[in-house]
């Protein structure tokens, strides 16, 4: 259906309705709008109805603001070792319907009405910026954080600087061209932009804040990662095209990064990590230490020695003192020294989501440890290996050894817990496997 097939009267009316929408009554109004229009469409009265005279029920009495379901527990309470299996169990389709029944033209119809609002908003933001006042209006506060130009220090507080950069008439004032979206949809499928973004498909800051809350809630309800990831990508895109760079942005990227870690999606994780780095560099506060620790672990995983050397050299004393960073540095040290004992111990004690990253290289380090042991011991028992390499069950260590073709025993005919591995043939085999399997690290999406 192209928008030409709609009567102009209807378009105006829809725009008016959407203009008077509030956060609280949005789902209702949208549902009723859809219903009314589809009924009219079905009865072929689209062109004959006097739309200006139609009144939506949901817009008539102003409902009292609803606060209950909007505030939910933040993502941070998610325990890192939450069972991954439990996730797919529940899949509530509650909010999916809104996204599924996409009423594309709705947004297009609201264009005109929204434009006025947008210009109004822009003016408002401009005046706020000029006065430099500290505003409590969350919806506009991001404007104050737009690309701070005088970042002189990394103290973490400079980003709120109220100083207006000196106006140079020769420099393009990009702020004037910043888009502010007008879409009121909470959810939007991600689509890679191939042309200039259209404001009517972009969600403005207040809507995005709601989007994040909704996504967090849905994630807790075990919504599939594929869908949530897609939504996060569109959320990130809307932030990018509107050049919103503030604490909210950092939060979005942090949450997405954690989800990606949990679901082993290293491509998205690396993208988030890279963006977070630039956001932190701008001085925007966030969980800098947590993500610094992740970055060290990622560099260990990628065995990117050059970067690791440089990165460790640039850590601030405050970062170094942090527990998570300390852990990551301990991991680095244990790894460098071949201290597999300590390394596996640290694997078990990883703070935050560190274990998810360590998952990626722990087997490599175990193989290296086993290579060391194969030369230092004549025989090795299952139980000793199990505790040393932090395997939870005998089954796991058996699987690990089988995966790496370690299978010659001194006493093959006794029960598992008494079996002794013969170390003599191990080293050449392990060296070969190490070369084949672990010498080169493939990191998807690494920057």
């Amino acid at each position, binding site marked *: 259906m192209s928008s030409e097939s709609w009567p102009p009267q209807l378009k105006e009316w829809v725009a008016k309705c959407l203009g008077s929408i509030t956060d609280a009554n949005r789902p209702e109004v949208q549902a009723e709008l859809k219903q009314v229009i589809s009924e009219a469409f079905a009865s072929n009265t689209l062109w004959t109805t006097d739309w200006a005279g139609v009144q939506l029920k949901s817009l008539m009495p102003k409902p009292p603001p609803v606060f209950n379901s909007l505030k939910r527990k933040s993502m941070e309470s998610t325990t890192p070792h939450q069972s991954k299996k439990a996730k797919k169990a529940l899949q509530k389709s509650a909010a999916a319907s809104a996204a599924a029944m996409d009423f594309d033209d709705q947004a297009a119809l609201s264009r005109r009405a929204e434009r006025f609002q947008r210009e109004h908003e822009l003016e408002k933001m401009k005046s706020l910026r000029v006065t430099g006042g500290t505003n409590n209006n969350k919806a506009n506060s991001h404007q104050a954080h737009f690309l701070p130009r*005088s*970042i*002189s*220090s990394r103290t973490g507080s400079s980003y709120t600087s109220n100083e207006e950069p000196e106006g140079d008439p020769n420099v393009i004032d990009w702020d004037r061209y910043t888009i502010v979206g007008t879409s009121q949809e909470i959810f939007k499928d991600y689509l890679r932009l191939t042309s200039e973004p259209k404001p009517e498909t972009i969600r403005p800051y207040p809507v995005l804040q709601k989007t994040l809350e909704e996504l967090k809630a849905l994630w807790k309800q075990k919504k599939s990662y594929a869908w949530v990831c897609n939504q996060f990508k569109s959320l990130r895109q809307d932030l990018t095209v509107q050049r919103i760079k503030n604490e909210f942005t950092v939060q979005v990227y942090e949450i997405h990064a954690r989800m990606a870690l949990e679901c082993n999606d290293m491509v998205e994780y690396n993208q988030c990590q890279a963006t977070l780095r630039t956001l932190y560099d701008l001085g925007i506060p966030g969980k800098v230490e947590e993500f610094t620790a992740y970055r060290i672990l990622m560099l260990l995983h990628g065995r990117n*020695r*050059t*970067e*690791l*050397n*440089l990165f*460790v*050299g640039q850590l601030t004393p405050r970062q170094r003192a942090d527990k998570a960073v300390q852990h990551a540095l301990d991991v680095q*040290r244990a790894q*460098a*020294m*071949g*201290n*597999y*004992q*300590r390394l596996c111990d640290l694997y078990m004690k990883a703070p935050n989501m560190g274990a998810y990253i360590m998952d990626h290289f722990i087997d490599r380090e175990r193989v290296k440890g086993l*290579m*060391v*042991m194969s*030369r*230092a*011991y*004549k025989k*090795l*028992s299952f139980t*000793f290996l199990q505790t*040393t390499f932090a395997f939870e069950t005998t089954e796991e260590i058996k699987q690990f050894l089988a995966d790496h073709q370690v299978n010659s025993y001194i006493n093959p005919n006794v029960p598992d817990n008494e079996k002794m591995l013969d170390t003599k043939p191990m080293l050449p085999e392990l060296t070969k496997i190490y070369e084949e399997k672990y010498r080169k690290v493939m990191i998807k999406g690494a920057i």
Partner: protein
Amino acid sequence: MPMDFLTYISQLNDALTDEDGPKLAYLLRPTSPHGRDLVKEFRNPTKASLSRYENSMVSPWDDIAIEYVLVCSHVARKRYIEAFKEESQLVSLFLRFFTENRGWTLPALFSILRDLRDLAMDADFHAKYHGQKSDCMEDSARTIAKAFGHCMTDRTSPPDQSRKWGVYYIVGLVLKSYFRVKRISLSKNILRALEANTDIPPLSSFPRSHQVTFRYYIGMLSFLNEDFAKSEEELTLAFYNCHVEAHGNQERILAYLIPLRILKGHLPTQELMKRFPVLDELFAPFIQAIKVGDLKSYDRALEKWEARLLDLNLWLTIEKAREICLRSLFRRMWVASEKSTRIPISMFHAALAVSGIDVSEEETECLVANLIYRNFMKGYISHEMQMVVLAAVNPFPRVVDRPSPYALI
């Protein structure tokens, strides 16, 4: 007698007709005495005010001469960023001339690229001092890389007059810029471009100074990638070919060569260290600790020099050398236990405890295993008996006698 602009132009002209590269370099250097004269001649020159000199020489030399005056004037007034920008202009104008000429122009090219780099350094330093962001250094690296391309693509000059004789020097300049701005990962690109061209004369036929700089950076890059064998090879060559009076450069090379040699088990002599007091101060505590097996002072030194070692990217390497100190400690323990061939793990644990190192017995066992694996000790561990059985002959071989020491790191 002060030189005026017209004299300057005629001297440029002479250098060009004589194909006198060094003279050209001298004339284009902002620090040369005539630079000051020209600043005095034009009180406040701008591109517009100097435009009447256009066409006073064959293009692009009229513009180059004008840019030169502007650079000198900015430098004299301490406007570093502007100076850098004009010098960039000068370089791009020069490159236009450069691509149509032969190797005799290289001394001038080297000189102006060096000036460009120095001005970029000043500009960034100045900007940083005033809390501004500035990436002149990266700009300059880009410009220098462009010049590299122009050297590489010389297909017409006869071999002995080729612009290709500039490649290694220029790569050295580019790498230096990348190291300076800590964008070392960018180095790969230019080195790949260098490798892709097989028709460059061998490195050994280039001037020695070019070789030394190039080898130093290759050694550094290998070092950072922990390709220690390659690093040692390149740095050793750089060190032995380094000019005897380039003390600073020797020190730079040794800062990495000494730790590499220590990893292999070669401790530097007193004589050498005396010549480099800065390095002596840094490395002496580690060397001393290794000699006597004093793990605690080794760790204290690691802590004390942490910032400096991190800054030099040496921390990880010095940390690795700690194992050699550990070996010394265990060897002393072994001598003290009358060179017994059977030593319980608890003895190793006690040795660490006495040195003030707090680790568990499990970890002690792991440390011993690592020493055996890396050939610092000969023998095997019996986990069930919690016993280390040492080889009857030479259980602690000399560190230098270990086969392929870098391979097992």
